[in-house]
């Protein structure tokens, strides 16, 4: 599938901003399943400085500084991406028992192993807690193969948690989401990661998009028209397995991956600091449109 994605963020400030330093994480990654054809970033007012850096996780960040007085900042990222299908059918069958994966992780000094291991620890927004472990262990029963247990956990989170955009914000800790059983895709991803890390598995946070237009005969998925988030879990030999707890699906050719990190904080699409400004509002519009079959 070929997609054209337009992601537009608009900040409106109460008072003029004299200097704004910002970072975007809006450039889709390239991988086995995903090819970035092109991407352009349009910033208004035009920044005095704009530079790209690859972060620790391999995401492409853009740093820019707006130095002219402004009361509105518009950042529009337009990208074109080719997606190949990646179904759960490609997952290992049945795959290793989850305890084995957890036990082996600290001893795997291969590049891939070390890269995965770092996602087994607490991160700024995600704590390891007994309550998360207990919830996870209902799916991760003794010697159950990791893929199967993972799908089960995904299904349970999808079932037990209600999508509700009114109860949480970008800073709500997973503990609170877990207690309220409500939240948005970011919260579900955080909770699932917390569950997985609490039983010593490596799980990372994936930021991306979901196709806007539903396929005939299939329900429209939640999380379109905005940026989306899901979870990826490390399973040796087969690599990273993606699951989307918000929709209880395995991402296939409808999920475009922007970036991954330990939690939302590593990959927030756009953040920054403004001198002046005062109260402000943010409006985000995302449009992901299939423009052809790749």
């Amino acid at each position, binding site marked *: 599938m070929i997609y054209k994605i337009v992601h537009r963020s608009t900040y409106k400030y109460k008072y003029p901003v004299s200097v704004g330093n910002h970072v975007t994480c809006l450039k889709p990654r390239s991988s086995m399943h995903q090819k970035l054809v092109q991407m352009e970033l349009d910033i208004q007012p035009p920044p005095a*400085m704009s530079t790209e850096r690859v972060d620790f996780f391999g995401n492409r960040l853009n740093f820019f500084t707006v*130095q002219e007085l402004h009361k509105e900042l518009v950042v529009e990222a337009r990208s074109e991406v080719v997606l190949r299908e990646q179904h759960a059918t490609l997952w290992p069958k049945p795959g290793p028992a989850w305890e084995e994966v957890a036990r082996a992780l600290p001893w795997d000094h291969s590049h891939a192993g070390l890269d995965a291991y*770092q996602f087994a*620890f607490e991160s700024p927004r995600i704590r390891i807690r007994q309550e998360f472990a207990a919830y996870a262990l209902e799916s991760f029963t003794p010697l159950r193969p990791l893929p199967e247990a993972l799908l089960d956990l995904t299904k349970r989170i999808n079932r037990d948690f209600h999508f509700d955009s009114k109860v949480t914000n970008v800073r709500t800790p997973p503990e609170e989401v877990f207690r309220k059983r409500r939240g948005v895709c970011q919260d579900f991803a955080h909770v699932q990661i917390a569950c997985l890390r609490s039983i010593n598995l490596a799980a990372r946070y994936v930021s991306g998009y979901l196709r806007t237009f539903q396929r005939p005969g299939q329900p429209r998925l939640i999380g379109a028209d905005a940026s989306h988030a899901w979870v990826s879990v490390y399973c040796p030999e087969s690599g990273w397995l993606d699951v989307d707890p918000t929709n209880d699906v395995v991402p296939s050719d409808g999920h475009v991956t922007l970036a991954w990190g330990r939690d939302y904080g590593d990959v*927030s699409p756009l953040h920054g*600091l403004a*001198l002046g400004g005062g109260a402000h509002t943010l409006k985000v519009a995302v449009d992901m449109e299939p423009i052809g079959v790749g």
Partner: protein
Amino acid sequence: MSVDLDQTPLRYGATYDELSADGVNPREHWTHLMESLRAIGPEELSRRWNRAERRIRENGITYNIYSDPLGANRPWRIDLVPLLISPDEWRFIEQGIIQRAQLLNVILEDLYGLQELVTNGHFPAALLYANPAFLRPLVGVKVPPQSYLHMLAIDLARSPDGQWWVLADRTQAPAGSGYALENRTIVSDVLPDLFRTSNVLRLAPFFRAQREALIQLAGGGNPRIVLLTPGPHNETYFEHSYIARYLGFTLVEGADLTVRDRAVFLKTVDGLEKVDVILRRVDDSFCDPLELRSESLLGVPGLVDAVAAGNVKVANALGSGLIETAALMPFLPGLSRHLLDEELKLPSVATWWCGQTPALDWVLNHLDSVVVKPAFPTRGMEPVFGAEIPQAEKSKFAEQMRTRPYEYVAQEQIALSTAPVWENGHLIPRSVVLRTYVLNTGNGWIALPGGLTRVAESEGPIVSMQRGGHSKDAWVLWDGPVDTFSMLRPRSEPVELHRVAPAVPSSVADNVFWLGRYVERAENIARIVRSLIPRVRRADEAELGCLIRMHNCLESRHSKLPKVKKRQPTLRELEQELVSVVSNVKRPDSLAATLAEVSRVGGNVRERLSADMNYLISQLRDSIQVEHGNQFLEYPATLTRCLELLSAFSGMERENINRGSGWLFMSIGRRLERAIYLTRQLREVTTPLCEQDWSFLECLLEVADSSVSYRTRYFTTLQPLAVLDLLMADEMNPRSLDFQLRHLADLYRKLPRHMDDDLRAMQDAVARLGSFDLRTIEYPMPGSAAGEAHGFDGLSRLEKFLRELEYLLPSWSNNLSSRYFSHARTLPITVGQ
């Protein structure tokens, strides 16, 4: 107090006694000191020590203690007896800490670079990944070779067998070297003969090397080096300003800096100036709210990117806090063999990192003999003494450790050695920890000879500045020649002469501007109240009106007096009001509150003021405290003392400060403030005075310190117009309005980046002021009761002019602020996180 130093009990027991091996005779390297103290005698020592303590207070040497209910700014507590270190012992320590510094530097370089130590298993991956101080944005960011650590502190303790152990490494922004320097100054002052005859290794060469190392880090030349402080509320702020002044760096807070085009700039009154090196006292993760902790208000947004672009150097490099964890300690011997091909010379205190199963098992089996601490102190867990955990809770604690074992370290407790402390005429043994410092000169490492000796508050093993302990100087007694270099007395190096000082940071200009205003404001309040007090006690009802008029000139918004329209206040009420104007700190318009502001803004720029000026500011703060008796009657004398100090301050301002931008803003502040209240006072005369209020003129002359000038011109006849002439139009009188306005215009002409509109307005005001011919103005005379009806045109025009000026003057102050200071210390808002 009878004291016999010979009979001071020297304990010998379970701890190592620095002073004596057998509990009776001092060790060899202590004998000279003990003899010398004995020769001076306890009485003389006490006298000297009292002088020193006074000096500590006067110099404003403080250490803010977070938990102190009495508030910040506790005086620094130091002990008069230095810790003595013999030459051989120092050689051993020096080698050990230098080797450790080299090792830690190489480890950091690897962990932020290729991470070979992790892939080859020399450094546990979990210890890296679980550590919140591992700053991922800094991985792969190039810094000059061998430069992660510019300076580090290593805490040492001595166990009962005399062996030195490392307790902790401070690798990101080590504190205390400035206090060590200050301790040296004080102790060598108290014991000058002993210091001179002891051949003590000097500290100054270390600081010279530090300055040179930072210049070299910048790539040479005449770089702009700033010391980044979290601000006056930080516990070691005194030291930040002390070091900045000593090394000649600009003291800045995060908001003084801004990143443009991937480079760091200092906001100055001349515009933005590029910064080459940041010596930071802000912790790693707080340094850049854009890429590190977004909630930090202490850092500079975009700093990491500027570092990555190679446009600024930070010392210590961002991310250096990674290796402060005690969990690293058990791996150092192996890392030393692997990386340096050497055995580790100085052992660390026995430490187990629970992230490895054998260590965890050992710790859980020996819980009673260890203290368990968080491996990563940002988690905020207090150390737990295993032996103190009730038996019933041990398994729960063990379970908690097993959940995330890598979050814990366990350490053996060392019985700290003791050193003698001078207390109430006795020498008493107290536990000590020696904080040593190692500097990367870019061309090898050097150690600060000695360091900061921290002393336990009372008997017992806990040594902590945060908990209110105190400190000692440490003398390395040397057996070779000693370099007596002083920072202010450079050796034979050629000096490039500079006439132009680097531009003044906007925040400094802001503070000195307000210092000028507050000092002047304090003087005005003090003068008005001093002139009122004796009159209030003497006054009859008729004179009361004139006193109220004088009080009104204070424009006091927080006055407790009833509004005149309702009823005339009583003398008693006026008396209470004046007491409150002087001493009520909670009233922003009181003298006490104004002096507190003087102290606050002065404190913000203490590194820019001479020691004498800082001293005056601290004296001013305490000058109006009346402890005993009737406050009201004490006040005239107290206020006179306060005015003396204020005069001393303005004398220094005129005679001792270089006429750079800093002085310019202070003088503008003073002139503006004086013009503001003078205009207000003059308006009291141009709103015609009725007969019984004419004594107001006498008050006014007194407040303006112009009584003598008046009397020599007019003898004793008080005439409103004559007073107006002297206080408004006389350009020779430094207290006249004309004088203020002309001077303001002169000062404005010197401002960088002119303020043309306001300058023109000032010149216009001077011209208009000159256009009033007081000889042609008629003033309503006593007896001509129908005065107002007559239309005293000249007088009302003058009144109108003064009213306009009352509006203009604060607007000039505001314009100046928004032009030069507004961007100073404005904090950015976070968007999107």
